[in-house]
């Protein structure tokens, strides 16, 4: 089996992450319960004729994919695999609302056409004329990890040499309204610096797109090697610890081999206990980082975590804003990512510097 490398990264998020020359040097703070991305100039990436039909999520995905391809010095790839929890929810809301508002008449085509979950992967393929494997995984908070796992397997078995993998989710008005009603979004606004001390239910919702070129050939600009990806539907906090130990064992690693853990804490008092079980348990002596105070919670927020981990390995630097327990390893070699949402769809991703 061939090794799998991350040869380029790109992220559009609530921070100025679309510029790959910097790494969270300046942090944009928010005091809100919903945070939106800082938009790059989409015209630099998408022709106006195509952009006019694209909702935010599609623009984010296409722009992030172009940044990742540019960084990898590639014009095309063998496959495009995306993960999304909600797909193009803004266009879905638009055409469903129109059906209701217009008494099931006058349904216009654009928002309907653009509303599928595979629209982002499809638009990327159209823009770079990629006729290869094109797939979108829709599986709540393991959508991105599922896409990553598919790419990893294809590259390991040399079924493809370069694959564009990404996670993308957008915010939409009705989606926000519904999640506020069921308390999945925090009732009160929270300052991003104080997210983990909020002691309230729900999360601060966000949006974003993070894309990566994965390859089975190392290049001059390789960020890290993808050692393993594992997803789990549900387990108790007690089972979590043994699941992590088994996961590491399968990779011939011990807890002490992990230099940094990047965790998906979102400040939800009901479910952050899963992260606490690890950070106060087996990982208490490991350098801990977190990221959802920077990008918000969304089904593919873990792709931002993967972006952050790859950047830490490449730069050998932990930005102040993401430090959770203040510990710093002497070198950043192996990074573990752990994420879950509302106690379900847990994932471990293991990256290593090379």
């Amino acid at each position: 089996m061939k090794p799998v490398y991350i040869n380029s990264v790109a992220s559009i998020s609530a921070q100025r992450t679309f510029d790959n020359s910097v790494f969270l040097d300046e942090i944009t703070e928010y005091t809100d319960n919903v945070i939106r991305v800082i938009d790059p100039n989409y015209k630099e990436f998408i022709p106006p004729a195509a952009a006019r039909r694209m909702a935010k999520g599609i623009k984010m995905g296409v722009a992030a994919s172009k940044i990742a391809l540019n960084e990898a010095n590639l014009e095309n790839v063998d496959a495009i695999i995306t993960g999304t929890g909600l797909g193009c929810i803004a266009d879905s809301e638009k055409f469903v609302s129109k059906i209701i508002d217009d008494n099931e008449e006058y349904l216009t085509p654009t928002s309907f056409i653009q509303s599928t979950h595979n629209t982002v992967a499809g638009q990327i393929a159209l823009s770079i004329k990629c006729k290869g494997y094109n797939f979108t995984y829709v599986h709540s908070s393991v959508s991105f990890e599922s896409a990553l796992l598919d790419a990893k397997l294809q590259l390991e078995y040399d079924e493809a040499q370069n694959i564009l993998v990404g996670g993308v989710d957008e915010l939409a008005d009705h989606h926000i309204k519904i999640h506020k009603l069921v308390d999945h979004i925090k009732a009160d606004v929270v300052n991003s610096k104080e997210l983990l001390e909020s002691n309230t239910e729900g999360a601060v919702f966000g949006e974003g797109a993070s894309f990566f070129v994965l390859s089975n050939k190392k290049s001059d600009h390789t960020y890290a090697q993808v050692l393993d990806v594992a997803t789990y539907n549900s387990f108790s906090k007690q089972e979590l610890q043994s699941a992590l130990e088994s996961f590491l064992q399968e990779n011939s690693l011990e807890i002490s081999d992990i230099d940094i853990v990047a965790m998906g804490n979102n400040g939800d008092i009901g479910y952050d206990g899963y992260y606490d079980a690890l950070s106060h348990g087996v990982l208490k002596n490991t350098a801990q980082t977190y990221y959802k105070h920077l990008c918000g919670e969304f089904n593919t927020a873990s792709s931002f975590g993967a972006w952050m981990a790859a950047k830490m390995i490449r730069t050998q630097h932990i930005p102040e804003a993401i430090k959770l327990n203040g510990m710093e390893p002497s070198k950043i070699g192996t990074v573990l990512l752990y994420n879950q949402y509302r106690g379900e769809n847990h994932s471990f991703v293991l990256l290593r510097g090379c």
Partner: protein
Amino acid sequence: MEALKEELKSKIIEQLNLEDVSVDEIADDDPLFGDGLGLDSIDALELIVMLDKDYGIKLADPKEGKKIFESVGTMADYITQHKTK
């Protein structure tokens, strides 16, 4: 008629999300498809729905569309003659 043409230009820009185009930039006889505004078949569907919804005009013969949607001027002429609301 002039007011209708201005109204159509605004609706085309808004409904087709032509962000970089203003009403002043669309001449009454500019081709909407091809070399003019560069609209395509999906836009044509949007315009057909607009005729139905805003002016009560149902196009029974799709071939008619080619002439009707030639320009803002031809659209305004057709709407003036056939509108039911």
